[in-house]
């Protein structure tokens, strides 16, 4: 059996949600006749008609604002942003309305919409097509931010996102669209707010989400050869965040590396590192390290491998987890430099 791709699972989740609930409508750029540039909405127009799945004018603030209005009228819009960076025109609508409407109105109005964002790189895409924008949303109170790393989660989390009474920014790792797995749909996985241990291990915890989960798993596999038994945790939902599962793991292993594809500075990885050391300080044998994208604009295809967290970089970080209980020499020059 060929297995189900993540793209197909997402498509099935949309179709099943539309079949189950008349209020669910899908719209955006090229989602109708074309079925989306990644074909995630393939067949929905044919099956549900152009009232339930349709193309809009090319304007992302318009798409999101239109969804807000439709939600006010009682519908449950699921909108597609064609690529990560093309959601930026909608930023005001997202930050000032989608995230805040429930709170502004003491719950009288809610915005049960899903904003699907194909994100991150690793597909040789040109500029503006590979941004990891999850931190912008995760930093905005009032938004749930969800990102599947498995085919099963793609289906289950998207169904849950559509059913959720609140707005969900649903970040789809492009490079995993055509990864496949043996999953029979429909499937219900762990709910929002639950991280999952994808690989148990004793020596250190790798925390990852979305496109970085396969990297973490591969690194854990490679680490076995070096004698490290690494645990891999998939956050699955960034907001809400599962402190419990992650803290429990790090308290057990005493070491932690956080992996994210986004640029490092003030990313979600920083939040995870900060939370882990707040909660697990006395169990830690080494600082929580981060392996992130570089703090540069997403590079052209020929250089993206230098930018992205690689298995090697994860292993390097694991190697720096002070197995000999020696402080990390990397920071010593800084110490001296600032001694004056």
């Amino acid at each position, binding site marked *: 059996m060929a297995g189900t791709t993540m793209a197909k699972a997402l498509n099935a989740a949309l179709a099943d949600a539309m079949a189950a609930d008349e209020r669910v409508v899908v719209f955006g750029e090229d989602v109708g006749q074309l079925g989306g540039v990644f074909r995630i909405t393939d067949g929905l127009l044919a099956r549900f008609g152009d009232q339930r799945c349709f193309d809009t004018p090319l304007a992302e603030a318009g798409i*999101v*604002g239109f969804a807000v209005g*439709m939600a*006010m009228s009682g519908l449950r819009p699921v909108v597609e942003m064609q690529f990560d960076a093309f959601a930026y025109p909608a930023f005001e609508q997202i930050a000032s309305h989608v995230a805040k409407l429930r709170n502004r109105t003491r719950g009288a109005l809610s915005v049960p919409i899903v904003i699907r964002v194909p994100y991150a790189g690793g597909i040789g895409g040109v500029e503006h097509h590979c941004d990891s924008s999850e931190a912008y949303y995760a930093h905005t109170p009032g938004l749930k931010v969800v990102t599947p790393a498995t085919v099963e989660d793609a289906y289950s989390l998207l169904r849950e996102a559509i059913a959720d009474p*609140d707005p969900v920014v649903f970040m789809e790792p492009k490079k995993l669209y055509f990864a496949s797995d043996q999953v029979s749909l429909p499937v219900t996985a762990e709910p929002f707010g639950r991280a999952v241990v994808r690989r148990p291990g004793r020596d250190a915890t790798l925390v990852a989400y979305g496109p970085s989960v396969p990297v973490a798993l591969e690194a854990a596999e490679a680490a076995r050869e070096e004698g490290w038994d690494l645990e891999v945790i998939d956050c699955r939902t960034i907001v*809400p965040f599962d402190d419990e599962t992650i803290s429990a793991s790090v308290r057990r292993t005493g070491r932690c590396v956080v992996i994210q594809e986004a640029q490092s500075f003030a990313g979600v990885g920083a939040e995870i590192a900060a939370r882990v050391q707040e909660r697990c300080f006395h169990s830690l044998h080494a600082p929580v390290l981060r392996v992130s994208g570089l703090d540069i604009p997403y590079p052209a295809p020929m250089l993206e491998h230098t930018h992205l967290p690689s298995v090697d970089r994860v292993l390097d970080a694991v190697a720096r987890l002070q197995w000999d209980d020696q402080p990390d020499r990397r920071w010593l020059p800084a110490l001296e430099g600032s001694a004056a």
Partner: protein
Amino acid sequence: MTTTPQAVRRASPRTRRAVTPPDPARALLPSLEPVRMIDEQGNRLPERSDYPEPSADALRELYRRMVIGRRFDLQATTLTKQGRLAVYPSSRGQEACQVGAMLAVRPTDWVFPTYRESMALVSRDIDPVEVLTLLRGDWHCGYDPAARRTAPQCTPLATQTVHAAGVAYGEAYQGHDTVALAFIGDGATSEGDFHEGVNFAAVFKAPVVFFVQNNRYAISVPLSRQTAAPSLAYKGVGYGVPSEQVDGNDPVAVLAVLNRAVAHARAGNGPFLVEAHTYRMEPHTNADDASRYRDGAEVDAWRDRDPIARLAAYLRHLGVLDDGAEAGIAAEAEAYAADLRARMNVQPTVDPLSLFDHVFAEPTPQLVEQREQVRAELAADAEQAADERDAHERGAR
């Protein structure tokens, strides 16, 4: 080698067009001059077959609500001076627009107001204390927007136009004949969201009335910095949206034009754009100093076009208003203001823990944790206050 183009064989005559095609813009462009139905002195101008005059009853009700609306507006400005409101953006001078729009729609229609529309909202019979909640500072929106079919007053400029398109489309999708009326200022038409909102409505034939109150200023910035167009109503044709401009200080014309716009939308013909030429008599808000950017003479000139005096004169001509009725309405307005004053004198109480109640339907674990922290702080503060009180009492004993 080079030949002049003139030497060329002409296309055969049959490819030439003998008749000029019809101008598709004509049906969409606004009147060349703003629609007016009564002049500044309240005299009736020639009738227009395109805009039937509202009934005398409707005009009398319009007048009544304009008088109350102005009194409300004045009271709100006064409340800022007494520290009861953080800030208030007055719409004095814009009464014809504020109230006219609310009389043009049904209670089941959706309204999308900006921060400027407090007067409109009270004209929609929303409790004035609820209307002023945002400016009073205890929560962001005081009324129930779902029950009142009135969005929270919108501050991020022009963003509400897109919501209006969405609601209108969503209602139509569900088989209702609801119209959405979106207010917007002259300045805000420069925002990209205005473009997208009108365009979405047009492409999806959503029943929206976009109502531009062109009050000549965006805070201090004059209209000339917003557009080089003949007038803002000329924007409609670019979306295929029929448009009109109206004298925004002529209450009869405002109501007549909006009635038609709303009927157009309700009949399934798609959106309609109305620009009302009016003037903001007060500064942008009480915190603004309008003398920095406009002179008194300009304001005075607009005083002569006061929409209330104008409508009163016309109603007297019509014979539906006399001294007694005018005094009765004035008394009603005073009572309205007195009630508002009294109720605004009560300091609202707010529970700090309510901050966590509506971020999501169910708080995240992170919010539960933060709530617990705040709860503990409040408990500790209360304990400390109690201790201090005890100590004080013991000391006093």
